[in-house]
C-alpha cells in the first residue's frame, strides 16, 4: 500500500478501438440530448424559488405534523393555494406559495409564520425564503448569463490554446452534456435554482478539464507520430489517458458521493446532479468529444504537417 499501487483500472497495454463506435456514441448522445430538449419544453424544469419567486417555509413541529390544522390556519390568514407537504421526517412541513407581480411576498411570509405557530404550538420555522418576482427574474437572467459566458470563455480559451477544431468539438460536447443534465433535472424533479446553476457550471468546468487532457494528448501525438492516421491517433490518445480519465472521475465522484448521501435537503440535489454530470462528462470525453474532433479535423489536422502550437 505504501509501495507499488495495488489496483489499476486498465492495463497499460490496453488498446480499445473507441473510434469504431463513434457513430453509435454520437447517435446515442444526440438522441438523449434531443429527448432532453423535448423534456425541457414539456413538462419543463421544476423552477426553484430563486427563479420562480414566491415563498417557501420549512417548519419543524413538536409532534407529528397536522396538515389539516396548518391548512386551516393558513386559510384563516387569507393565504390560499398554499402547497403544504411533508418532507424528511414526520415532524417536517414544507409550505410553498407562488407569487406574481402584485404579491407582497414579504408580508405574506410573516402571515405564514404566524399561521404555523398558531396551528402547531411549539413549532419552529427553520427556514423561510421569500423572493419577489422582480428579483427572481433578475436572478434567472444572471444565472443564464453566467452559464452562457462560461461557455464562451471556455470556447475562447481552448481556441487560444489549441486549434478551432478542438474548441468547437469541446463546446459542442459541452452543450450536449448540458442538455442531458437539463433532461436529468426534469426527470428527477430537482428544483432548478442558483445552486443548480453552480452545479452545472462545475460540471462544465470538470467536463472541459477532462476534454483538455485528452486533447492535450492528441496534440502531443500529432507531433510525435507524423504519419499516423487521425483515427488511430485519437484512439491511441484516449487509451493512453484512460487510466487518468477513470482515476480522476473516480476521485471527483467519491468526493461528491457523501454530499449526495449526507448533504441534507439543500445539497443532495446539487450533489446528485454533480454525480450525473461526472459520469456524462467523462463518457462524453471519450465517446463524443473525440469522435467530433475526428469528424471536424480528419481533413485538416492531419494534412497540416507544420507543428501545432507549442504547449
Amino acid at each position, binding site marked *: 500500500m505504501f509501495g507499488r499501487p495495488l489496483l489499476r483500472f486498465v492495463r497499460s497495454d490496453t488498446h480499445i478501438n473507441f473510434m469504431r463506435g463513434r457513430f453509435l456514441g454520437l447517435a446515442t448522445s444526440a438522441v438523449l440530448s434531443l429527448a432532453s430538449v423535448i423534456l425541457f419544453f414539456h413538462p419543463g424544469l421544476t423552477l426553484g424559488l430563486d427563479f420562480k419567486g414566491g415563498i417557501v417555509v420549512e417548519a419543524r413541529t413538536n409532534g407529528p405534523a397536522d396538515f389539516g390544522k396548518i391548512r386551516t390556519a393558513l386559510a384563516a390568514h387569507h393565504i390560499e393555494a398554499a402547497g403544504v407537504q411533508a418532507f424528511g421526517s414526520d415532524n417536517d412541513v414544507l409550505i410553498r406559495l407562488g407569487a406574481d407581480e402584485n404579491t407582497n411576498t414579504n408580508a405574506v411570509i410573516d402571515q405564514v409564520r404566524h399561521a404555523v405557530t398558531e396551528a402547531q404550538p411549539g413549532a419552529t420555522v427553520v427556514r423561510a425564503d421569500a423572493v419577489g418576482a422582480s428579483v427572481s427574474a433578475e436572478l434567472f437572467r444572471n444565472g443564464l448569463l453566467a452559464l452562457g459566458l462560461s461557455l464562451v470563455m471556455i470556447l475562447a480559451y481552448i481556441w487560444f490554446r489549441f486549434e478551432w477544431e478542438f474548441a468547437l468539438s469541446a463546446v459542442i460536447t459541452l452543450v450536449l452534456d448540458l442538455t442531458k443534465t437539463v433532461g436529468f433535472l426534469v426527470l428527477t424533479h430537482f428544483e432548478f435554482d442558483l445552486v443548480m*446553476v453552480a452545479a452545472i457550471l462545475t460540471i462544465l468546468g470538470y467536463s472541459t478539464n477532462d476534454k483538455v487532457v485528452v486533447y492535450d494528448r492528441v496534440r502531443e501525438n500529432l507531433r510525435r507520430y507524423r504519419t499516423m492516421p487521425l483515427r488511430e491517433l485519437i484512439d491511441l490518445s484516449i487509451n493512453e489517458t484512460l487510466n487518468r480519465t477513470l482515476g480522476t472521475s473516480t476521485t471527483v465522484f467519491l468526493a461528491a458521493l457523501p454530499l449526495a448521501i449526507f448533504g441534507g435537503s439543500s*445539497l443532495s440535489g446539487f450533489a446528485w446532479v454533480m454525480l450525473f454530470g461526472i459520469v456524462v462528462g467523462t463518457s462524453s470525453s471519450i465517446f463524443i468529444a473525440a469522435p467530433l474532433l475526428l469528424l471536424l479535423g480528419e481533413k485538416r489536422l492531419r494534412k497540416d504537417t507544420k507543428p501545432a502550437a507549442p504547449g
Partner: protein
Amino acid sequence: MMYYSRAKLFSVIAACLAGLLLCVPNFVRKPAASIPWPQIHLGLDLRGGSYLLMQVDLSSLTHDRLQSLSDSARQSLLAAGLGYRDIALDTKQGQFSFRPRDPSEKDRDLKILSDMPRAVADEFTVAARPDGSIALTLSPDAMRTRAHEAVTQAIEIVRRRIDATGAVDPEITRQGEDRIIVELPGISDPEHIKSLLGTTARMTFRLVDETAPGATVAPPGDTMLPLTEAPGQTLAVRDHIDVDGADLVNAGATTDEQTGGWAVNFTLNSAGTRAFSAVTQANVGRRFAIVLDNKVIEAPVIRSAITGGNGIITGNFDARKATDLGLLLRAGALPVPLTVAEERSIGPSLGADSIRAGALSLLVGFLLVIVFMALFYGRFGWYANVALFANLVLMLAILSLFGATLTLPGMAGMLLTLGMAVDANILIVERIREELKRGRTPLAAMQAGFERATATILDSNATAFLAHVMLFVFGTGPVRGFALTITIGIATTLFSTLLLSRLLMVRWYALTRPSTLPV
C-alpha cells in the same frame, strides 16, 4: 524539475506551516483581545440568521424633486405675474412641463425657470418644446448623484435603526445602484426589523385647517390625510410644514402621566425649538397635527405655547409601538422608501444540521479519496494525500486570512476541490508510468512526467477557474461562497501539487536513489 533549491524548499515548507498556523484561530478560543485572530465567518445558512434584500424606490426621489421644483416654479411664475396651464410631471423622463398662458410670455417663462436655484450645478435644463410647451428636465447625472447620496444616507439610517435593536454583527452593504443587503446573523425571524426598515418615519408637525371641518375634498394648500387611530377617516391638514422631524435630537418611549398609557417624548434642536415655540404661540386653541409618513398620529389642541423644545406624542400606543416609534425618530427618516425584495431566513437548528452535514461529507469524502489514492497509486498516492491535506489546510488558511464567509455550498466547493486536486497528481504519476514504459530511466521518467504534466495541469485548471469566476461575478449569496472556495481551491491545488507533492517525490528520489519507481 528534479532539483529544489534550498530557498525553494524552505519557502514551500514555510508556506505550509504558515497555513497551519492560520488555521489555528478557527479551532482555538481567542486568548487575548489584542492578538489578531483571523477566523472564517460562517455564512447565514450555517449559523442561522436572515438575509434581506431591500429595494430602494428611486422613482420616489425623482418624483419628490420634480414636485418641489414645480412648486417653486409655479411660485416664481405667479410672483412675476405669469400664468401657466397643463402642468404635467413625468417621473420616468425626469421632467415636468407646462404651457405658457400666452405664447408671448414664453421667453420670460424660460428666463425665470432657468434662473431658479439648482441643488447642484447643471441639475436641470429648461427648454421650449416644438408644441409650444416648456419642459424642465433633470439631468441624468444629477439624478444619479442624488440617488447615490440617498442610498448612502439610507444605509446609514438602516444601520442606526438596526443597531438600536441590539442585533449582533449586522452587515449592511450596497448592492448595485438601488439595492441594500442587510444580513442579520442569529435573527431567524426578521419580522420586527422588516417593519422598522419598511417605515420611512418622516415626521412633520403641521396645522390642521380649521376652516374646512368635515371636508372630504382638500381645499387648496391642504391635503386630506388619513388618521392612524380612526381607519377610514381623514383630516384636512395644511401642506406647509411648521416643524420637521429632522430637527429632532432625541426621542424615546415613556408613559403618559395623565392616562398611564404609552407615549413617545421628543426633544428638538434649537432651530426646531424656535419654530415650535413660534407656531404654538401664534396658534393657541388650534389643532396641531403630528404626521408620520402621511398619516395623522394625533392632532391635539394647542393649549399654550410650548417653548422648551420638549413634547410628547400620545397616540394609542402599546409598549412595542412606542419603543419602535422612539427608535425610528431617533435614527432619522429614510430619504427614500425601502421594500423587501428578497428574504431568506434560516433557523439556528437548521444551520447546525447543515454544519454537521457539511463536515461529515467533507470527512467521508476526504477519506474516500485518500483510500482511493493509496490503493491506486501507492507511495506516490500517499504523497498526493499529504498534498491533499496541505491543500485543505491552505484553503482554510486563505479563507481565514481574508475573513471570508463559509457557506454550505462553499463546503461543497471545498470537497469538490479536494476531489479534483488529486487530478494533478494522477496526471503526473500516469505520465511517469508511460515514460518508464517508453524505456526511460526512473530519473528521466520523473523529469519528463513533471514537465509534460505541468502544461496539462495548467490548461485544465485554467478552464475550471474561468467557469467559477463567472459564477462568482453573476451569482449571489451562498452560490458566491461556492465559487469563491473553488477559485481559492484552484490556487491552493496548483501550489500543493506542483510544488509540495513534487517536492516529496523529488526528496524521496534523492534520498533513496531507487532503481525502479513504485508505479
